[in-house]
């Protein structure tokens, strides 16, 4: 009996990892059909996709850079979901963080680099935190559902960004030249994210994101506040009876979540090619939809901050690879976007099987864990002590 159980456990673990991979492959197979319909060669397309994502040092750097905002947002989402709060305001929070960071850099141009950099990153945290705290407070104290308020605040954020970048924050050079492109001037060199290995593009953003993920893990499982967040997420009523300030905790959950997204926004600005903030009029033009894709990355990581790291990296690779595929076989970008959606749908759709595999892996006769009210099931990650069996 024991050996059969062990065998099934390892098999299950192995399968649990493979299921999302299989899902991605299935989605890509449909993509292959679409490629053929468009007259492109799918084998070549996917070759370019993999090469573009992981096939060279350059590709890996691009993937890491693309994954960075996904990881930040994903980590933030993880914190919020653990408290049973849905945060789909990532886009707006990224913009808010980026704006505050940019304003900071523009207002204090003479700060020495070693202050400037932390200052803008903190400003990013603050901007995003604010943009998360507002829906949090609206939910906790006014009963305004966070899905509504976050969606509405996304709209407000983009208009604020357009106003500021066309007006008070615009590069004075643009006014002189009469072109009025809505962008800031080239931001202070001191605020440039330092480069790793002296490479032209690889900045410390990915490292900061990984640190953030670790910090989130520590927060959630090693601090009293984290315990309160998780408790409120699992059972708000019991938590209230236990003396946990539920409303305040909910606000904090959204605030942290927003802060992470805000940090993503700041890193985007100061790590960007252009080292300035520029808008095309939409949020996605700045964020690359990281506010949404980060949610997906969080799910891929089983809503556990540490696992969100590889999940973001892989998802980032898919996005980068997709663009490389577009360039190589010259299909419309719209196909890549549709493919992006298919991958998400397939991985999400098969998630239940993955969790089942993992659940089976841990203990066959495990008592049913409390499912938090999002229908979400804790997944197998490095088991923090005191969490219980399946987390």
């Amino acid at each position, binding site marked *: 009996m024991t050996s059969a159980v062990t065998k099934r456990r390892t098999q299950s673990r192995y399968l649990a990892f493979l299921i999302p991979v299989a899902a991605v492959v299935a989605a890509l197979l449909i993509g292959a059909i679409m490629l053929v319909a468009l007259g492109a060669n799918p084998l070549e397309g996917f*070759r370019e996709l*993999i090469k573009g994502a992981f096939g060279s040092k350059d590709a890996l750097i691009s993937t890491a850079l693309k994954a960075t905002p996904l990881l930040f947002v994903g980590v933030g989402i993880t914190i919020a979901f653990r408290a049973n709060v849905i945060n789909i305001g990532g886009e707006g929070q990224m913009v808010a963080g980026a704006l505050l960071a940019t304003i900071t850099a523009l207002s204090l141009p003479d700060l020495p680099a070693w202050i400037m950099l932390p200052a803008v990153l903190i400003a990013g945290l603050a901007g995003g935190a604010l943009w998360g705290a507002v829906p949090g407070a609206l939910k906790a104290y006014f009963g305004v559902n966070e899905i509504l308020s976050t969606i509405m605040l996304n709209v407000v954020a983009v208009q604020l960004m357009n106003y500021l970048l066309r007006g008070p924050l615009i590069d004075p050079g643009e006014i002189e030249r*009469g072109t009025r492109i809505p962008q800031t001037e080239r931001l202070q060199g001191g605020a440039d994210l330092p480069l790793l290995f002296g490479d032209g593009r690889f900045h410390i953003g990915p490292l900061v994101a990984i640190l953030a993920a670790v910090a989130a893990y520590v927060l959630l499982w090693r601090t009293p506040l984290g315990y309160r967040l998780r408790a409120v997420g699992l059972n708000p009523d019991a938590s209230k009876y236990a003396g946990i300030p539920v409303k305040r905790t909910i606000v904090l959950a959204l605030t942290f979540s927003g802060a992470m997204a805000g940090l993503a926004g700041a890193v*985007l600005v100061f790590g960007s090619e252009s080292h300035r903030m520029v808008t095309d009029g939409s949020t996605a*033009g700045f964020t690359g*939809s990281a506010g949404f894709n980060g949610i997906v990355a969080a799910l891929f990581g089983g809503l556990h901050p540490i696992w969100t790291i590889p999940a973001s990296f892989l998802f980032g690779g898919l996005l980068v690879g997709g663009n490389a595929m577009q*360039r190589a076989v010259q299909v419309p970008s719209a196909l890549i976007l549709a493919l992006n959606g298919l991958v998400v749908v397939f991985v999400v759709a098969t998630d239940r099987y993955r969790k089942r595999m993992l659940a089976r892996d841990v203990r066959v006769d495990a008592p049913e864990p409390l499912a938090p009210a999002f229908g979400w099931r804790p997944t197998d990650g490095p088991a923090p002590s005191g969490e219980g069996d399946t987390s």
Partner: protein
Amino acid sequence: MNQDHAVHDEGGTLKKHRLTKLIVVLALALVAAACGDVDTTTTAGEAETTTTAGEAEATTTTAAEAEPFRIAIVAPSASNDLAFTQSIVDAVNVIKSEMGNVDLQVTDGTFVVEDAAAAIRAYADSGVDLVIAHGSQYGGSLQEIAPDFPDTSFAWGTAADTFGLSNVFAYEAASDEGGYVMGVMGAALSESNVIGIVGPVEVGDAKLYVDGFKAGVLAQNPDAEVLVNYTDSFSDVALASEAAQAQAANGADVMSGTAQMVVGAVTVASDQGILWFGTQANQTSLAPNIVVASQVYHWEVVLRDIIAKIEAGTPGGEYFKIDLANGGEVIEYNDGFDLPADVRQLGEDAIAGIKDGSITTGS
């Protein structure tokens, strides 16, 4: 919640195992195919045309066949948007049919600035001769990328700044000129003397055009009422449609507008018999009954010069503009619309005046 009883679904699970394994095998096969071919394709220099065959591109062939001139376009909206992006894609296709030996790669719909930067960099890295960064928001990135590729030429539009870099061209459209001309004609055609303009965001090319059109209207009829509406979005068609409705409700009987979402305004104009002037592309097909004329961008006029410069050894550092004088902007009339001769004459006079400098659009 877990229906996971070992005995219960052994059969189902088994099937799932097999299915999963099958998919994994397929995945491995794909990966193997991908990796296996790496050697047979020359990575960096690989030029793919739009109809791609899977075989490695052979650059042998006919005797005097020179290397194709490779152009890549990175643009923010769709290639068929009947506006901004379409104008540059059409222009390069004209060049392609003229020059013959041109390879064109297009990455459209790239409104995410960082993705565009990545695309520009990737094309430059792959040995493209001319990368056209067709979006004002790409400038900041281009400024950083171009120095890394001194052997590649870049063209940035719509913009006027070459950053002092020797391998960057800048190009712009004097869209106010055509706007002015059509504004003059619009004012002459209007009976209510209320004219409406629908724009996206008040920046760059859009602002130039709107200002020019308005100036033309007022030059022809200083008492005309010009209603300008920036919808604050490049993509919200419904808002553009309602903006047009709002202007129509205020009595506008002639309208114009710019950017891709303006198609919503055109259909409203078409419904209500309001005359329309288009820009960036020929918009006659949108409403053959009421489109009077369009200012069509013919970027090929400057692209020819740019390519000539590149081939002659000047990879950048110059600024180009399309306008009425050099034929980069052409007022294309809708032949199906009965334009009175005197109004047309006003338009022609305005064109002549702008060309010889006696008329300024005031922008």
